[in-house]
């Protein structure tokens, strides 16, 4: 279990992370979200031991994270962190050896992963000769070569097409099934919703939203109703609890203040003609984020 307790980090007088706490259990995928400068990378660096904490504790299975446990951790940085003059094989051996792996084991796992990602022909090619997407795959492969207990992924899907995102997702879920603790950050809320059971949203280093996604959504009072048919928008807006009606080309999205309003809307809709769709939806994470922070996460 990864436990982050009341972690604070100051850069001079600037508070980059403010009393951040969360726990991630074995096999869980955890989302660390925040706009640029929110404190995500600082948090990752503190977990990895690259930065000293000003206050608080970070432990993995009850032990403080130091160089005695880093062999069991995988780390994928937001920016490319590959030695581009090396070949894929040389790079894998370099990073794998730093994880205490033998050359034979590195090559065995590298071959397997290159095949899985469909890039086995690049094994002896220099990294600088690869496309950005393929470089990202190599970076991901070197991060998971050691089958880590804790995997930290900073923007893992950056620069990837939907097909490759699927490949990454599959491998991440695979690792999760094997019991790896996975934390990742993303600018895309939909990715977080797809993967994570739990999350923390950081704003200026402070947690503004945290916990189980399902519970967060359930506890969030506001809902959305999607309606397709002939309705009078003005009458709908007059119903108490209806906050906004957005007209799309084919349907209407009605934002309500709480789930009790659903009955009133349904009563009105039942009087209307040609109603082909009436769906009550949970709000998206982005909507929850906007309501908490006052601005959109996905700018």
């Amino acid at each position: 279990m990864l436990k982050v307790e009341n972690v604070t980090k100051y850069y001079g007088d600037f508070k980059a992370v403010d009393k951040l706490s969360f726990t991630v259990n074995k096999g869980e995928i955890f989302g660390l979200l925040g706009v640029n400068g929110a404190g995500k990378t600082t948090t990752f660096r503190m977990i990895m031991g690259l930065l000293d904490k000003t206050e608080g504790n970070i432990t993995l299975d009850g032990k403080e994270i130091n160089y005695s446990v880093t062999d069991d951790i995988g780390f994928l940085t937001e920016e490319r962190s590959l030695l581009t003059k090396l070949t894929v094989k040389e790079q894998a051996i370099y990073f794998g050896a730093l994880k205490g792996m033998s050359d034979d084991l590195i090559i065995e796992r590298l071959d397997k992963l290159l095949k899985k990602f469909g890039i086995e022909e690049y094994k002896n090619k220099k990294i600088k000769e690869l496309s950005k997407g393929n470089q990202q795959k190599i970076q991901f492969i070197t991060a998971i070569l050691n089958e880590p207990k804790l995997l930290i992924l900073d923007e893992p899907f950056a620069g990837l097409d939907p097909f490759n995102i699927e490949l990454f997702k599959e491998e991440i879920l695979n690792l999760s099934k094997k019991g790896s603790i996975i934390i990742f950050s993303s600018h895309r809320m939909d990715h977080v919703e797809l993967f994570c059971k739990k999350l923390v949203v950081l704003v200026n280093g402070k947690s503004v939203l945290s916990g189980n996604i399902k519970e967060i959504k359930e506890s969030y009072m506001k809902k959305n109703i999607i309606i397709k048919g002939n309705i009078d928008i003005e009458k709908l807006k007059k119903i108490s609890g209806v906050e906004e009606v957005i007209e799309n080309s084919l349907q209407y999205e009605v934002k309500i203040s709480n789930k009790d309003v659903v009955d009133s809307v349904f009563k009105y809709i039942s009087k209307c003609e040609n109603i082909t769709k009436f769906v009550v939806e949970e709000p998206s994470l982005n909507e929850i984020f906007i309501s908490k922070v006052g601005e959109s996460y996905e700018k």
Partner: protein
Amino acid sequence: MRSKLNFLINISLKKKIKSKWFLIANIVIGLLIIGLINLDSIITSFGGDFDTNTKIYITDETRVIAPSFEEALNIYVTNLYGTEESNYEIEITDKSSDEIIETIKNEENNSILIEIFYDENNEINAKLISLSTLDTYDYQIISGALNTTTSMYTLSSIGLTEEQYNKILHGVEIDRVILDESVKTEDENMEMIVTTVFPVIILPFFMLTIFLIQFIGTEVNDEKSTKSMEIIISNVSPKTHFASKIIANNLFIFMQVVLMVTYAMIGLGVRKLIGGDNIINGIGTEVSNILSTLANGVLGDKLVPLLIFTIILMILTFVAYSLIAGILASMTTNAEDYQQVQGPIVIILLVGYYLSMIAGMFEGSIFIKVLSFFPLISAILSPSLLVMGQIGVVEVIISTIIMIITNYLLIKYGIRIYKVGILNYSSTGMWKKMFKSLRNK
């Protein structure tokens, strides 16, 4: 499980050795060293006979000067070159001047015609005829020998006894006696530095230190600019990473020194094979002269520890330069920034380089002596002062101790800067961050 430090050292060394740069640089360095050792043979092989004798034709109206001229000429050659072997071939002839001039014009070598004759005042004079201009030394020797021969003839013709004649001609022999064995003349010092210390110690030391500074900077910046440093430092401590860079690059430099010595050996072997002058004996004599001067002078039986300490001092200085280079490289974010910050250390090295070159001109200078204790300069300046007998074993030991303290401080505080700098990607406020990190523990 393999040691991560050993792995990093190996990978750093392999990267350099496998590079094309290493191969090309060593081909160039090897050829240069072998070429320099065999420079005379190379120049000769491209044409020109530099040992050809200069032919001197003499027509002598007086019939008395020419026979003694050759003897006088040989005395001048011995005095000027320190050898009894003369490159002049003399032919006294009765042929006409025009006939000889024709011969000179047809000869490949620069032959000379000396016409000795009586002028209108019945005094002996001479005319020097050659196809092109004469070498200054040739002119000095010939004119000197002619003057001597003429004087001898004139003196003998006025009826002096042989004893009187020898007394007049006897020159004053100046025997130089220097009481202080360690003191030599400025020219001798300069010559010794330029011919022995400079090519064997100062120049290779300077060149290798520059290489060392460049290697460390490039390597650290390469890892920083590609951001792979984040992954590396998340697996090994900055201390281990720093140590790996210092050890790997110093080992590489040591390897380069061994290679350079090997090239020199090959050069000497080639020289022996192609039958060049025996430079080995020449070098041997030169070195043994210096060593015997040092041994017989102020150093006595301390020569061996002195040499050991000098080598230790040089190794410590290599380590110090690599520590500084590593620290500075950690604070910069790209190669351009590093080129700027390494400027001051290269200047310090240059100061040491020039001071060691000119040390012989300022013999006994307290300023230079004090600077020889200055860390980073001591190793490059000490060999010159040592050869001149300006410093001894005590001074070298003091410099070594100062260097050990310097390296200790560089390691102690350098690690703190390195730890902060290695993951810093901002170039603003670099020096502020550097000094601030000194307070960290």
